[in-house]
């Protein structure tokens, strides 16, 4: 599919490839952006280009340029997702 930046508020997807150098990718993973993790876009922050994402029990705001380098794929059907969640 597309990148995290394309996710509209209220929708959910699964984290895919992180198109960053090693250092930045590690930090994103430490914050929960681990391939396979389910992530939802909650809302856009007013007056800017931050969006708030909910993932792995926390809320994180990212600028769109960062979000656009996090690939996502559509969420699989509910049953499958639960099985591979953890």
């Amino acid at each position, binding site marked *: 599919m597309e990148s995290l930046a394309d996710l509209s508020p209220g929708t959910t997807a699964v984290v895919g490839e992180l198109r960053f150098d090693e250092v*930045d990718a590690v930090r994103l993973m430490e914050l929960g952006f681990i391939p396979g993790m389910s992530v939802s876009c909650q809302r856009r922050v007013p007056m800017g280009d931050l969006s708030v994402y909910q993932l792995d029990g926390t809320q994180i705001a990212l600028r769109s340029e960062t979000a656009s380098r996090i690939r996502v794929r559509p969420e699989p059907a509910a049953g499958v997702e639960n099985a591979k*969640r953890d």
Partner: protein
Amino acid sequence: MPSAIEAAPAKPQPEQGARRTVAICGPPNVGKSTFFNRLTGLHQKVANYPGITVEKRIGRLELPNGPPVDLIDLPGIVGLHPRSEDERIAIDVLRGTSRATPQPAAAVLILDSTNLQAQLRLVPEILGFGIPTLVALNMADDLSARGGNVDAQAVAKQVGAPVVAVSARLGTGMDKVTKFLEGTLAPPQPVELPVLNNIPAERRWAGGVARRASYHPPEPSLWGRRLDRAFLHPVAGPLIFLAVVVLVFQSIFTLAVPLMDAVDSLIGTTAGWLGILLPDSMLKGLLLDGVWGGVGSVVIFLPQILILFLFIGILEDSGYLARAAAIADRSMRAVGLEGRSFIPLLSSYACAVPAIMAARTVENQRDRLATIFIAPLTTCSARLPVYALLIAAFIPEQPLLGPILGTRAAVLLGLYALGFAAACATAWVLKSTILKSKPAPFMLQLPAYRWPTLRSLSYRLLDRSKIFLRRAGTVILLTTIVLWFLASVPYTDGEPPAIGDSLAGSIGKTIEPLVEPLGLNWKVGIGLITSLAAREVIVGTLGTIYGMEADEDSPALQDALRSELSFGSAIALMIFFAFAMQCMSTVAIVRRETGGWKWPIAQFTYMLVLAYTAGFAAFRIFG
């Protein structure tokens, strides 16, 4: 009995006889400092957003059974790969590579139990340091209030380390912590942990541990969702932001008035008693004019400062500040800074010194320097007494927006905005020239909303009062006494001189040509010199000078100022204070954080030139 501490694998021990140290570590904003404060009785700063603690802090803990231990509160870490200065400090201490601190004998890993499946990932990483570790699942109160629960014993079995559920806020579960610190808590069987440096694998393991310990995450907070909907609403969000700012500034004037009157009459009454009690002597003059007049005229502003800190406290403890930072990201981005710089800049409204230290959380070195450079331009609370005095003397109070916003609050707001604008413009210049860098990904964690506690708010106010009064009792008292002596010599025919003929007067008159272009007289000139020590000193200095000058019934400082300064020169003076770096503590901290004199000297010169030019322009325009 096997002891958690003694069971440690042999490690290079700190030198003989040194006290045992125990490090408190964990992810950001999980309550490490709250936990540390609970045990040591100290008041480390606590607030509801990540990156508050940026330095290690040591506190002694007396144990009921056993020798005391030194607890070390560390900055938060999200993994073993530090990116910013504060994270590096924490990792260095845990690893034992910090020069100043030997490797601690044990560690307490604090985790947020409301998000356990993600946070447990840090367990193998911390256990990998090879020191006995207690895992404390904090926020137990919040977890159970929202219908979650966890079996700490089951977690312990799977991680091979002792685990307790605690609430650092309420103090529950701390008895087991004490046992661990005394070394009498039996650790469970060690188990095999996932290999490090594979975050997805660690995370899968953590999820498995949580599941097998029948961890029920708490219900998502409905209130949090509602608050975010309002605070981050496209229209309401920015309006609320604005309303909050206006409310704070208006309260500084309206709420503080009765309190200030009370302080004022207290100072007046005690001065009256002193006047009656003391025989006429030089000492009496020093006490009444120097100390009471000088220090008293600064202390009177304590209520306004406390109101500012009360609001900052509520905003920080509730979690709103992180949302404000998100909204402000745009302006940070426009000037080329990371949004992360916003939080240090915000804390600069209290005081630039902690703000400059908080810039450690800014990962990019060039961004960090830019943040340090502009922090003293944002309006710190030491400017408040100066502004409040001049505004009260020169700006008549009139309603602007009905009862919501008056002229005085509006002028104050304008001064704050001016400082912020100067900070932004300076950042932009720096970031597009000597401190240019490629933008790094910006990730802002939004903490859960929490009720500010009375305990934490009152500690903030108490600590702030102590700092303020200590400054009044040291820096301000000292400059006032020196000034009083300079203003009392030379005696002619056994009589003290008129202040204009005194030594202080002649110094002031020598520099008068320098301040004249801003419409200021030599008395204010003396104040500008003394305020190099700290900004609010000028208020004390003016209090002393005008107090000594007036005979008997000293007119209020405000009236004296009104009779000698024009409206334009008052504006020029305020603008000078908005921009100038009159604070030796700030100079010292910048030197320490940047490791040399280059940056503080550049900063001091730049701000002085800016202040003088802008003050001159203001006097031309308004004078």
